[in-house]
């Protein structure tokens, strides 16, 4: 793609159309009126966690900034507090759109690999679908060791006091590390999930094929 055609694509409707068709609730994006109430209401944005606040992401979609939007970590920062949805004067389901874009970026493999939310989401899903029950010890350890062994040990030491407190209160069972508890019908769960995957995959493939 030459530089000129790249500019030609810019500020055209194509990416917007893509979002509208591929992303859950994506057809709402064009209704944003850029008031910025969502950004002002976002509790995470107060800590400057967002590179692009929601209304800016919407504008980038209108402006056709495909690469920047899909590789952005911004929508992954959403904590689903729903403040923006409650306050949006245009009634955009912003939280859902954020998750929709994140999911689409993930599907395309464009989402930032080690983004903590994305990493944790994957970890959680794997953890809970494995036995049908969430193994909290494995889940938190998995997150501690996200950035390598040394950092994992450091993280563990930092959380030492909390862990000992939990042990004393019998809220943490160290033996969970070995196998852990399971649900009764593990095969049933796996079959159910397999079917669900199948349904969703066929639906999304059909959608992407147009």
């Amino acid at each position: 793609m030459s530089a000129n055609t790249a500019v030609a694509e810019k500020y055209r409707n194509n990416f917007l159309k893509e979002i509208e068709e591929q992303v859950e609730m994506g057809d709402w994006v064009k209704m944003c009126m850029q008031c910025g109430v969502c950004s002002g209401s976002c509790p995470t944005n107060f800590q400057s966690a967002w590179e692009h606040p929601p209304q800016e992401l919407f504008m980038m979609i209108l402006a056709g900034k495909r690469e920047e939007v899909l590789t952005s970590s911004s929508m992954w920062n959403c904590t689903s507090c729903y403040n923006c949805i409650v306050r949006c004067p245009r009634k955009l389901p912003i939280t859902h759109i954020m998750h929709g874009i994140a999911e689409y970026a993930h599907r395309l493999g464009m989402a930032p690999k080690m983004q903590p939310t994305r990493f944790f989401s994957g970890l959680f899903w794997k953890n809970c679908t494995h036995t049908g029950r969430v193994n909290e010890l494995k889940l938190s350890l998995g997150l501690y060791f996200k950035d390598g062994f040394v950092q994992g040990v450091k993280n563990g030491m930092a959380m030492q006091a909390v862990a000992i407190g939990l042990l004393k209160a019998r809220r943490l069972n160290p033996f969970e590390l070995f196998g852990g508890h399971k649900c009764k019908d593990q095969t049933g769960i796996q079959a159910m999930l397999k079917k669900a995957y199948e349904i969703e995959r066929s639906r999304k493939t059909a959608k992407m094929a147009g």
Partner: protein
Amino acid sequence: MADIKVAAYICKGCGLGERLDTDALVKIAQKDGKVPLAKSHDFLCNADGVAMIKNDIANEGVTHIMIGACSRRAKTEAFNFPENAVARANLREGVVWIRPDTDEARETTQEMAEDYIRMGCAEVKAMTAPAGNPNTGGSKTLLVVGGGVTGMTTAIEASKTGYSVVLVEKSGALGGWAGKLYKRTPVHEPYKSPADTGVADLVSQVLADSNIKLYLNATIAKTDGAPGRFVVDVATESGATHTEDIGAIVQATGFTLYDMNKLPELGGGKSPNVVDQAGLEALASAAAAGDGVIRRPSDGAPVKSVVFVQCAGQRDTTGQHLSYCSGFCCNASIKQAMYFKDVNPDVDTTIIYTDLRTPGNGEDFYRSAQEKGVIFTKGKVAEVMPMGNTSTVKFNDLILGDTDASMVDVDLVVLATGQVPNSGVNIELPAEAAEAGTVEIKPISILNLSYRQGPDVPQLKQGFTDSHFICFPYETRRTGIYTAGPVRRPMDIAQAREDATGAALKAIQALENAELGRAAHPRSGDLSFPKIRLEGCTQCKRCTVECPFGAIDEDEKRFPVVNESRCRRCGTCMGACPVRVISFDNYSINSVGAQIKAVDIPDEFSEKPRILILACENDAYPALDMAGMSRNEYSAFVRIIPIRCLGSVNTIWITDALNAGYDGVMLMGCKSGDEYQCHFVKGSELGRVRLSKIDDTLKTLNLESERVRDLEVAITDIERVPEMINKYAAELVAVGPSPFKGF
């Protein structure tokens, strides 16, 4: 002067009887007021009280009535004696309601009431009941200048009300700008798509109406006369002139789009593919006549992408272009984007705006455009570069912070250039500036008035015609001439139609009042008018120059000639006259001067200062009345005289007051300057110019400058006015008593 018999009536109702010694007030009226007939009544404004006054008029030969009761602004229907001169002493809002009901306050409160009785008696003797101006005309025909939406609506509305109309249109067809539109912004539910303009319907209504006389290809060659008796020469294309007798005039001359050739950086005039909004309407109309596809002017290829540039040459801070927002163009661009989207949703339509302003139900319309896929980009367009059959639009993206954003291969660029009023000649433009060519002038006069002030109505800002923006939006400073539509301020069709209806009704009111010799707003129904004692006139021309309404002309000997029907009765001429030969029957140098002199001035050892307040009857006096209604207390040392306008204040009143031993004078008028609130537009400004020279007078009297205070008071200053009075009273204590007391 015929024999006068004055009667004074003191009311005891509303607590006046309990708070004041009304018997003493009756005695004051007899002794100091020298009134032969003075009475008190328990409840003067009820049927019995009014009957008593009417009986005295009929049987006792009472001609002049002094009522000591509530404010002159209250109970006007009960105390309505049109055949008699009536003065009102404000004992309720002006005395008992603003004073505490305590034993210590009783004495000063009573003194206040006594002074108001003296003032009322003095005033009424200086008055006569006004009989109305004899120089009237009874034409009931309305002249409407301009055959656009505003003009046609005015004509139709006036005709429906039963008045005949002469409609003059410069071009060969009715319709104006709206007639050139393909469609208009919707004004009915669900506000989703462009609607029919309705112009054809208006045109057919005008053509079918036998009450409306239509001149096409015609202009106004001359306008002479006054409300009720305008004589207007209509010049037609053939060179013939038709003379029409006109009662009142509505100028609906509309606007011209700002010339896009002045915007070369936005591609204006550089390519046929850069058009203004009117250009796009023409393309859309042409397309609608064909296959519905809007085509690129340069080569006729279907338009695949179009960019709308908002605020082109508008809201400009550099001073080169229009500084204001025209208010209609965001909705118009949204509408025009829909022209494309409704035919083919695949056409890229982008509106680049800095602030999207969609008045009326434009918000729904905006949302509908978003649903249809129109892209709204917040940005400021820096440059439009046409190349071949397409253009590149460079802009600063204000949301994404991209200063060098651009769109390429744009087939069509539409510039939203805004409205420039067709208001005729700027009569206030200094002649030198016009000659030097430093200011752009529109050389063609619209009304060609034969007034000494100039051929057109005055302008306020940016060439829009002047009006009292807050209270009387259609009124120009030429009585009986109303402006409506975009010539007055930028507006869309819906607003223009509302404006047209309002102006039609105001014009009808004006010609009806003119026939009866009465004033139009704000002293609506006032029968008094300025009378000039020409023997004393020095031909200084101050009255003719200062009259804000162009009511006073000069005769061949350069004496002033009052056109009573053009007059708004503000009294600015009276305030301006250095030899004091101008007066009204019920308001004159003497009627106010006598009140000033009637006040009893205690000696300097009594520690009872006297402060004269001359309060504008439109804003300051109502504010003072309302302060009374809210029981906001103020000093008992003030004596308040309502005046018609700060412009009517003659400096002799101030000199007289200071000479008589008043310790201070407060003048309360409306805000002046560009953001004026004066009901007579320029009255308070002219008054203040005059007062700025009062320091000289004070110097000759050897008095401190604190003795005269000029204040801006708005009608809402209900709490602020008492505070200002009390503050000033305290300041005067520090200055000390006036040295003129006791002479």
